[in-house]
C-alpha cells in the first residue's frame, strides 16, 4: 500500500467517530480537505492531535444528531442561570451570612476561614465562571465551570469521608454538578436573546431568591446548613434540582414534542415552586405573608395550557410600525 493510500485509510478509520449519516453527507469532501491540509503541510501521515480533534468533533456531531445545538444552548442557559443564582443564594445565606446574620456560626464552630464551609469553593467558581462569560472570556468561563464541577465531585467525596463540624448535604454538590454540566453542554449566551436572558436573569433570580429565603429563614444562619427549618441547604438544593431538570427537559423538547412538554412539565414546576414559597406564609408567629400552594398549581397549569397552545399554533405576533397608520 502506498503512503498516500495508507494515510487515506488512517483518515477513513478516524472518520468513523462521526455518525454514519454525517459521513454519507460530508465524508468524502471532508477526507479531501484532510488530505489537502496534510499535502499543504508536507505530511505523510495524520498527527496525534489531529486524530484526537477528529474524535472530539465526531462525538460532537453524534450529540448534535440527538440534541441540536439550539436545544443544547437553551439547556446551557438554564444551567448557567440556575447555577449562578443558587450559588449567590447559598453564598449570602450560608457562607458569608455569619458576618451579618443573627444566630450565626462563630469561630468555635470551626468555620472555613472567612466563609462557613468548603462549599464556598464551588459557589465562588460558579459565580466566577458567570463573570468570565459576561466579560466575553469564553475559554476562561469553561475552565472555571469545569473546575466547579470537579470541586463538587471532590468535596462530595471529601466531606462524605470526613466528619465536618458544619455539614453540607451532598445534594447541594449534586445540583452544582448537574447545572455545571448543563452549562458546559452548549453556549448559554450564543444568541443576543439568550445573552440578555442569562446575564440579567441569573443575578435577578439570585437576588430574588436570596431575599425570599432570607425572610423564610428568619434571618438566622444556623438554620441553613442541615437545619430542620423550612429553608435549608438540602431543601433549596432539591427544589432547584427539580426545577432545573424540568426546565432542561422543556428546552430539549423538539418542535413536535414541545406542546406536550409544555402541557406536562410546566404544571409540574408548581410542586417545587409551591414548596419553595410555602414558608413565606402561614407562620403567624413570625408574621410573614402566605402564598398558598393552590396559587402555584392553578397558575402553572394555566401557563402550561397557554404555552402548549402557543407551541402548537405558533402564532406570529406583529405590531404596527411607527410609519403605519392603525386601522
Amino acid at each position: 500500500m502506498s503512503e498516500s493510500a495508507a494515510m487515506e485509510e488512517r483518515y477513513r478509520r478516524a472518520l468513523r467517530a462521526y455518525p454514519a449519516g454525517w459521513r454519507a453527507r460530508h465524508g468524502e469532501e471532508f477526507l479531501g480537505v484532510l488530505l489537502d491540509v496534510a499535502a499543504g503541510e508536507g505530511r505523510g501521515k495524520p498527527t496525534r492531535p489531529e486524530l484526537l480533534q477528529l474524535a472530539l468533533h465526531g462525538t460532537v456531531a453524534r450529540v448534535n444528531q440527538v440534541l441540536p445545538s439550539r436545544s443544547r444552548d437553551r439547556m446551557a442557559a438554564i444551567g448557567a442561570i440556575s447555577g449562578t443564582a443558587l450559588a449567590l443564594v447559598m453564598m449570602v445565606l450560608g457562607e458569608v451570612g455569619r458576618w451579618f446574620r443573627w444566630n450565626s456560626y462563630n469561630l468555635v464552630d470551626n468555620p472555613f476561614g472567612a466563609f462557613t464551609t468548603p462549599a464556598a469553593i464551588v459557589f465562588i467558581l460558579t459565580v466566577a465562571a458567570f463573570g468570565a462569560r459576561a466579560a466575553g472570556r469564553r475559554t476562561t468561563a469553561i475552565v472555571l465551570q469545569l473546575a466547579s464541577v470537579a470541586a463538587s465531585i471532590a468535596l462530595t467525596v471529601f466531606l462524605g469521608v470526613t466528619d465536618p463540624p458544619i455539614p453540607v448535604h451532598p445534594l447541594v454538590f449534586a445540583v452544582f454538578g448537574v447545572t455545571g454540566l448543563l452549562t458546559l453542554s452548549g453556549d448559554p449566551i450564543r444568541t443576543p436573546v439568550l445573552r440578555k436572558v442569562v446575564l440579567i436573569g441569573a443575578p435577578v433570580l439570585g437576588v430574588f431568591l436570596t431575599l425570599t429565603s432570607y425572610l423564610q429563614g428568619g434571618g438566622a444562619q444556623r438554620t441553613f446548613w442541615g437545619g430542620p427549618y423550612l429553608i435549608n441547604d438540602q431543601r433549596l438544593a432539591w427544589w432547584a434540582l427539580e426545577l432545573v431538570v424540568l426546565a432542561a427537559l422543556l428546552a430539549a423538547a423538539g418542535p413536535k414534542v414541545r406542546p406536550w412538554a409544555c402541557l406536562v412539565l410546566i404544571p409540574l414546576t408548581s410542586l417545587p415552586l409551591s414548596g419553595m414559597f410555602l414558608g413565606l406564609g402561614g407562620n403567624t408567629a413570625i408574621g410573614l405573608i402566605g402564598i398558598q400552594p393552590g396559587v402555584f398549581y392553578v397558575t402553572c397549569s394555566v401557563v402550561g395550557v397557554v404555552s402548549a397552545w402557543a407551541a402548537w399554533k405558533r402564532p406570529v405576533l406583529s405590531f404596527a410600525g411607527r410609519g403605519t397608520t392603525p386601522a
Partner: protein
Amino acid sequence: MREPTFLILTALARGRHHGYSLLTETKKLSGGRVSLKPGSLYTTLDRIQEEGLVEDAGEEVVAGRLRRYYALTDNGADALKREADRMEAAADAARQSLRVRTNGALA
C-alpha cells in the same frame, strides 16, 4: 458571534468556497492569527447551515477528491452585516475613549 464564524461568513461573502479554501482564506483574513482545523471548520459549517446562514453551492471532483462548495445566504449576509456594525460601534467607542484619554493627558 465567535471569530471563526465571523471569518467564515466574511470569506463566503466574497464568493463561494470549498472546505480547504475556507481554511486558507480564514487564515489570510485574520492575518495568520486564526488557524482553523478541519474538524472545527465542519462543526461550525454544520451549525451555520442549520441556522440558514450558509448553503450548499455545487460540487466537483478535482484530482479524484470531492469538493463541495458553500455560499452565503441572504440571512447570512444580514447576520454578517449586523456583526460588522456591532464591531464598528465598539471600535468607535474605544477610539473615542482613547482620544479623551490623550486629550486629558495633554491638558
